[in-house]
């Protein structure tokens, strides 16, 4: 299923009273479950598992989902008033680490100080470090390494400290 169709499906669920939606065919199975104030989306295809967004908005990445190694992303994250999302300020490619063989800047649980770097978004061959504007802890990482992101795309769920 491509991103445009998935977006339409999610919109259909959020626009109606539907609380649970399940669809299965030979290629993939899609489950959309609506909680008190969030939607959990599971999409299982042979090699791809989508990370569930923590905010009630469809995943905004524009490129069609490409098969990748299953992400270790949690299937659900309870929305918490202390949690906020860090959104991409530019369009480009998301990288978890400063270089292909280096350690990622953050993992789930990392405490990031004011001015600390979350990740890189590469645009036009320039590596832009995305910095923290307040001290926080990483709760969830929403994008895969080397995934394209657009302006306003949520990258991390964090807890302000």
């Amino acid at each position, binding site marked *: 299923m491509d991103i445009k169709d998935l977006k339409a499906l999610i919109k259909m669920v959020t626009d109606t009273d539907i609380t649970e939606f399940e669809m299965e065919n030979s290629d993939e199975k899609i489950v959309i479950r609506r909680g008190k104030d969030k939607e959990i989306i599971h999409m299982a295809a042979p090699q791809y598992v989508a990370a569930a967004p923590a905010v009630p908005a469809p995943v*905004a990445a*524009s*490129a069609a989902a490409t098969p990748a190694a299953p992400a270790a992303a949690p299937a659900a994250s309870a929305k918490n008033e202390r949690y906020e999302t860090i959104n991409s300020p*530019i369009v480009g*490619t998301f990288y978890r680490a400063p270089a292909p063989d280096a350690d990622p800047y953050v993992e789930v649980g990392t405490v990031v100080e004011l001015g600390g770097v979350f990740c890189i978004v590469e645009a*036009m061959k320039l590596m832009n470090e995305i910095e923290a504007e307040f001290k926080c802890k990483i709760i969830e990482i929403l994008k895969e390494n080397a995934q*394209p992101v657009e*302006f306003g795309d949520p990258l991390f769920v964090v807890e302000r400290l």
Partner: protein
Amino acid sequence: MFHKILIANRGEIALRIIRACKELGIKTVAVHSDVDSEALHVKLADESICIGPAASAKSYLNMKAIISAAEVTDADAIHPGYGFLSENAEFAEICGNCGLTFIGPTPENMRLMGDKIRARQTVTAAGVPILPGTKESVTSAEEAKKIAEKIGYPIIIKATAGGGGRGMKVVHSPASLPNAFAAARSEAQAGFGNPDVYIEKFCERPRHVEIQILADKHGNVIHLGERDCSIQRRHQKLLEEAPCPVLPDKVRKKMGDCAVAAAKSVGYTSVGTMEFLLDANNDFFFMEMNTRVQVEHPVTEMVTGIDIIKEQIRSAAGFPLRFKQSDIKIKGHAIECRINAEHPFKFTPSPGKIDGYHPPGGLGVRVDSAVYDQYTVLPHYDSMIAKLIVHADTREEAIKRMARALDEYIIEGIKTTIPFHQRIMINKEFIEGLVDTGFLERTVF
């Protein structure tokens, strides 16, 4: 042929380009600001990317974001539409450096024609008539006085780096010259970052007649006839038609040949428009060249049967022109009314939600618009929401058809300039085809 084109624009022109791409089998990428996520061009493109917040400077004018979007989507070309980055030579250069084809002319040609002084020098060399005026910028009020006396009043002071009808001052007598000169320079600085101005003879009651050029990358240049765009308010076009109702065939041919000669002389390779002033004696004078596709291109499409955007894309992809000059025939008459989200007679902006939308139809009626029922017209961008174009066998019939189509056009929830256009359709001077660029100013609606 291109595999995927990114459209660096919004509104009706983005939609227009997407339509041409779909018919050519080319994949499309729409870029949009965050407030434009419900825009029609975003819905109809194969892919879309949000590139920034509402402010144009951070989104539709944001070169880095647009190039980045092209990179992440693997687009091989960018179509800039009109306005925004369409005549930005730096952007065209960056596209080239990043391996993206910019669908438009070369940066050199953009710079050349964007500099009004150099443009005048260039076309003069190709044999195109220009209004008596200065060949270089005028640097002092004293120099301006001498030149004005030589040319003869009335004169007009224009910004060298200007265009689109902005930064111009008409002077009728020597007494007003010093102040007008100083004011023109500071407006030019404020509007275009460059205080340089030049002086031209001011034509009384001129008509604005422009020639559509189509060129390829193999040295072929043809013209697709003229458009009359004399109905303007504060130098912004509101209504255009093709052909010009008063132009004799001899003058039409001469104008077309001039435009082609000038374009060939600079090695022009895309679509463009050469604008002329036509005076009461049917003498014409070069005004400026627009190195992009224009808002009013549909009227030319209706009378020639040629899809200008498709031809522009083919040309950019390296294909030679499919038409010779002798293949171009003008058939019938076309009129375009620009429908703006504005009060019809005060022209104050009227953004908001359209809660009733029904466009007109029928033979010879075309609507180029990116609005739809329940769409919210945003205050951040220009107010044109639709172009209503009609085509008929004669000008008289086209006027009746436009009046009929305007009557059918329902846009509720916001104010639009439809009633204004309805008044023009019954105006005697317009019906007789006698309008010039001062028509709107002196006509009371």
